[in-house]
């Protein structure tokens, strides 16, 4: 067991990948000598050279498009998109190409490309640096989407993403980059399947589902609720596509109540999918409607008001109150 930050855990995970998988390579803007604007690739170019850690021209469609070509040649590229808000120039390559090549070739070709995206707000940043666009990828079949919430998962999930033969979008909770945690670099343990949800706190009165940056918030809300005598179960979804509905369903059948929290706007967000599916699967068990806590239907607002925008402990508690009072 070693203690490290999430950023360091991803760095170590990438290092392990580059060591163990000779076909893996990293591509992106500023990932070389700078080590990425968040230093997630720090030191890797020194260790593995310019052919394995590639500073690219400033062109996201080109990054993902050439990564696809490299994958077709047998490589496993890991692309870094510098910030959530800058993935959209690559949207066409991701949606119409990356996601569909396995299907288009009738299963003959695989394109094991990983796209790393630091995402989410809460860091007081300027426009386009705080968004949570995961729902815009989840709707497209052919992609897998995962997001770690702690260092141990971060270390293992990035490696699992590279090994996965399907394209994986790897959302990194940027405001948690400096969150420290224990990492077992020998054993993935219960984190051996990146597409499985984890129950991170057991409870019996209601379930909160969250992922990435909001997992610590959900846990804090559950702890606060415990002081009021409520026993809250918290699920770290880990995988946004596919979603481990079995784990959520079992929890809700036990608790009868569900809150889903994410930073992305509620309208059209992944919370709607969870609410709809769990409402169908556990219809007779639900004692209250599924309540979603998410961003408002607005562009991510300026830093000085993001506190009012972001789901936080209070908003989750308010939702819990509504659910418990139903």
């Amino acid at each position, binding site marked *: 067991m070693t203690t490290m930050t999430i950023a360091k855990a991803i760095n170590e995970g990438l290092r392990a990948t580059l060591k163990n998988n000779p076909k893996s390579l990293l591509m992106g803007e500023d990932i070389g000598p700078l080590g990425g604007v968040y230093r997630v690739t720090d030191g890797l170019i020194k260790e593995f050279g310019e052919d394995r850690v590639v500073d690219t*021209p400033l062109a996201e469609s080109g990054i993902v498009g*050439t990564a*696809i070509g*490299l994958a077709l040649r047998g490589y496993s590229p890991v692309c870094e998109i510098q910030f959530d808000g800058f993935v959209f120039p690559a949207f066409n390559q991701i949606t*119409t190409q990356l996601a569909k090549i396995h*299907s288009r070739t009738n299963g003959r070709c695989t394109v094991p490309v990983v796209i790393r995206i630091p995402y989410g707000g809460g860091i007081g940043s300027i426009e386009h640096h705080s968004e949570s666009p995961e729902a815009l990828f989840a709707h497209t079949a052919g992609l*897998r989407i995962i997001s770690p919430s702690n260092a141990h998962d971060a270390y293992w999930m990035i490696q699992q993403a590279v090994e996965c033969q399907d394209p994986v979008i790897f959302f990194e909770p940027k405001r948690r980059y400096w969150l420290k945690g224990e990492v077992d670099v020998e054993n993935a343990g219960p984190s051996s399947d990146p597409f499985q949800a984890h129950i991170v706190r057991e409870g019996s009165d209601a379930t909160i589902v969250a992922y990435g940056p909001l997992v610590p918030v959900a846990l804090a809300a559950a702890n606060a609720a415990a002081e009021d005598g409520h026993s809250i179960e918290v699920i770290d979804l880990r995988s946004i596509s596919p979603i481990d*509905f079995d784990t959520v369903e079992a929890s809700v059948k036990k608790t009868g109540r569900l809150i889903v929290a994410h930073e992305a706007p509620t309208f059209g967000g992944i919370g709607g999918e969870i609410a709809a599916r769990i409402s169908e699967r556990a219809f007779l068990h639900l004692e209250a409607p599924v309540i979603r806590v998410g961003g408002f239907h607005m562009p991510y607002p300026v830093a000085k008001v993001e506190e009012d925008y972001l789901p936080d402990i209070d908003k989750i508690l308010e939702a819990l109150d509504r659910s418990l009072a139903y």
Partner: protein
Amino acid sequence: MGSTQLPTPGTDGILAEVPSAGAVSGEPAAEMVQLLGPDGKLGTDPVFSDYAKRIEPEQLRRFYADMAKIRRFDQEATALQRQGELALWVPLTGQEGAQIGSGHASQPQDYIFPTYREHGVALVRNVDLADLLRQFRGISNGGWDPRENNFHLYTLVLAAQTPHAVGYAMGIQRDQKLAEASGSTEPKAAVMAYFGDGASSEGDVHESMVFAASYNAPVVFFCQNNHWAISVPSSVQTKIPLANRAKGYGFPGIRVDGNDVIAVHAVTEWALEHAREGRGPVLIEAYTYRVGAHTTADDPTKYRESAEETEWRSKDPLDRLEKYLRAEGLADDAFFEQVKADGDELAAQVRATTLSLEVPDIRSSFANVYAEKHPLVDEELAWFEEYSAGFESDEEAAN
């Protein structure tokens, strides 16, 4: 005739002179590599004549035979579409010179990314033409295994394959470094990316050229300027010859007469050598014409004069090679009759195979969404099985 000035072998970064930038793309540029004119006479070029001289008579006859074959195939596919056997067809007639010439310049180890009209290249790369029709019959999005002949599937989102080509070429660079380090003597390889005059306007083409130049990737961009993007003339995409685009990135750009199979072959061979030898990317603009409709769903009378089509028919790539072969005594009536017979046989065979192609089941779509197990796909497939079974039992009950 070509007065193209080329990089001295081994000297990097010197641009080929491309046609005068002032020229208007609607008319042939003053400077365009041409060896075999519409009159069937072979001219010379300071650089490319050497390449043309390498072509044996047998290979020239093969060029003709392949052009004739793919044109015959084109007719058959059009007929199949008219008869309702294909959802759509994308004819290549007029562009045989550009495709057969460039295709034959590639070597087996080269990898090719076509757009969707490169049937001639597919033929040269040994793709089963009935497999090629799967896509247009609506039974597959990719009818062949791209790895088998190093010929990628058609890509319908315009220009999206161009960065794939560059990435693939970056993979080749890495493989070759490793191979060299281990003393292997595998032949060097390059990549070709085909796209049209219309597609040239897409941002992806630019980003591809930026990456290719930046990494000196072994890739040949082969733009078939067939004068039209559906109804939009190439003058809307560019006011000057497209070959000039290469000047923006610092690699050679060459406009070649796309209806001159000999020049196309020579220029492409040169370009692929250039790329394979590590001297970086090349852009070739094959100046040609889409003689027919954009697709069987298109009606060119809405947007262009038939006089233009007539004029281009007089520059036909087959006619001029036939003239040359006959004039030089390299082929006789018997040869041309045999070519015709072979074409008819191919057409009959493709038709028969196409009509007997199995219709897929949606279960195969479920199977290929992901390479690895996926619970949602499994769940939806299970629902579908139960749902379908319901109909079957309904039917049984009704019987």
